[in-house]
């Protein structure tokens, strides 16, 4: 356990972008909120000024830049984490320590799929409070000409739980993609980027030419469209249906945006997700074997 923790710290030391990028987003957003001019909403006479819609919208959108930035640095990290150490031959130093290849690879996976995402979540949750404070102090948000309430504890907790749940489901959904990036990183003699992108595209093209189908293309496409939906909130019900299914949601803090249809819960029930996890485990096992038996440093 101590070894695993140290192994993860070492990853954070090496890949500073993993914490710099989310922090940078936090600073930029907070500075933005603090310097922003007046925000006005005209919701029409039917909406009382006391509605918490602006707060809710802010909470919904707040996490997006964090997760986008974290997603990019994690992808870059996963592609480099088993390749860089061979390129600079430092693998000989790491492997001279009593740390197994399994521990090393798992530490890298945990950093990419657990530490960074959940730390990013905490950062986004914390900064959303700060942003509310800043806005409340400066009274910047008006609805129908009146100051809108910018705090509702129950709603805040609810939104954070929605995000936490959505994030967890997404991480499970993306585990095979992350595992594939690590496998490309462990496999590549040079240019892990080429190994990450060329084989899936080539295979999809071949599949299409030989069988006239495009299952592979759809798997990849589906994975990415999912992230786009969440990132840009094109699919609000995705997040909201999760909220509905949480016991805490209740009726207390019904939001402005009403969800319809399935979202993350459907994702959890889908066989693709669980099949994907099996594939991810296989690819990680392969990456461990590659690190162990590969001898080109």
């Amino acid at each position, binding site marked *: 356990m101590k070894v695993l923790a*140290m192994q993860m710290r070492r990853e954070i030391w090496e890949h500073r972008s993993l914490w710099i990028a989310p922090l940078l987003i936090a600073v930029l957003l907070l500075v933005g909120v603090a310097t922003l001019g007046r925000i006005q909403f005209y919701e029409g006479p039917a909406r009382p000024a006391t509605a918490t819609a602006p707060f809710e919208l802010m909470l919904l959108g707040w996490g997006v830049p964090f997760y986008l930035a974290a997603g990019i640095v994690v992808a870059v990290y996963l592609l480099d984490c088993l390749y860089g150490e061979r390129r600079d*031959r430092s693998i000989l*130093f790491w492997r*001279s320590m009593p*740390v197994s290849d399994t521990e090393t690879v798992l530490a890298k996976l945990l950093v990419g799929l657990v530490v960074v995402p959940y730390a990013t979540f905490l950062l986004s949750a914390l900064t959303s409070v700060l942003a509310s404070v800043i806005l409340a102090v400066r009274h910047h948000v008006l609805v129908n000409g009146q100051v809108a309430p910018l705090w509702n504890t129950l709603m805040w907790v609810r939104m954070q739980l929605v995000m936490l749940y959505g994030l967890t489901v997404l991480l499970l959904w993306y585990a095979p993609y992350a595992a594939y990036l690590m496998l490309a990183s462990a496999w590549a003699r040079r240019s892990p980027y080429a190994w990450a992108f060329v084989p899936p595209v080539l295979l999809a093209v071949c599949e299409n030419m030989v069988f006239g189908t495009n299952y592979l293309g759809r798997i990849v496409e589906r994975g990415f469209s999912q992230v786009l939906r969440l990132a840009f909130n094109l699919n609000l019900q995705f997040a909201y249906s999760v909220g509905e299914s949480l016991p805490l949601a209740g009726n207390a803090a019904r939001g402005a945006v009403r969800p319809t249809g399935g979202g993350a819960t459907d994702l959890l029930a889908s066989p693709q997700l669980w099949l994907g996890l099996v594939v991810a485990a296989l690819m990680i096992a392969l990456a461990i074997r590659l690190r162990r038996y590969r001898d080109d440093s």
Partner: protein
Amino acid sequence: MANIIEVRGLTKRYGRSLALDGVSFNVGAGRIFGLIGRNGAGKTTLLKAILGLTPYEGSVRVFGLEAARDRSALMNEICFIADTGVLPRWLRVDHAIDYVQGVHPRFERARAEAVLAGTRIPRRARIGELSKGMITQLHLALILAIDARLLVLDEPTLGLDLIYRRQFYDTLLTDYLDKERTILLTTHQVEEVENLLTDVLFIDRGRVLLDAVVEDLPRRFLQLEVAAGQREAASALKPLYSREVLGRPVMLFENQPREVLAGLGEVHPPAIGELFVAKLTAAASPDDPSGGSSGGSSRLTTGEAA
């Protein structure tokens, strides 16, 4: 004396080429064992097999563990320095110490700090900012603070200038050897470790040329500076190898009694580097063991072995 390393029939192929071809030898506890060979002779491959860093055929047992299978357990007992280039450049010096302390149960931080205190290495510098000599000092400080039973060094002074090479072996001798631990090292700077080694293994093209205890070498091998007029008589004794030094023939003999040679000129025990070249030359022309006296010697110079 118990064997720490037992290698049996070790064979390693890279594609079609045979890097190691049925190598067998033992390393006893407390020995300072030198693996000597040209570039590409298979030294590093052999070390990698012993460290469990590469798959192989045959058996390599280190502390009773099969190296390829139990690498991470083995690393509790072994310290390993490849060459100076392998410490990651982005790592900070203090983090490097924290890291080894975090993962190695036998690391003693105070010892590392003590060795580092004698250097001018800044604690918060990244390794990439240090000079080559400093990196070696740091690596040595980390390794010496680990109470390991076997230290494996692969060309540890490669690319260092003379001062640092000296310092390296001095530190090694004072800090490591007083503990009666075992060292396995490869080098092509034979003359630097000549007085250090207790055992030598010559290796060429994946095969063992010589596996000997250094103490026994003078009994087996002798070097003769042939006196004027004795060249014919000396050649008749079938030297392993011969070369001209300042116009005088110098010949190396295996298993020739000292008394016989003493009549033909000045007799010395050969330097290990000299012996290595002789063995290599003899192996290169196996049909003609005295071939060294003709063209064979010009193929390799002592400079290459040294």
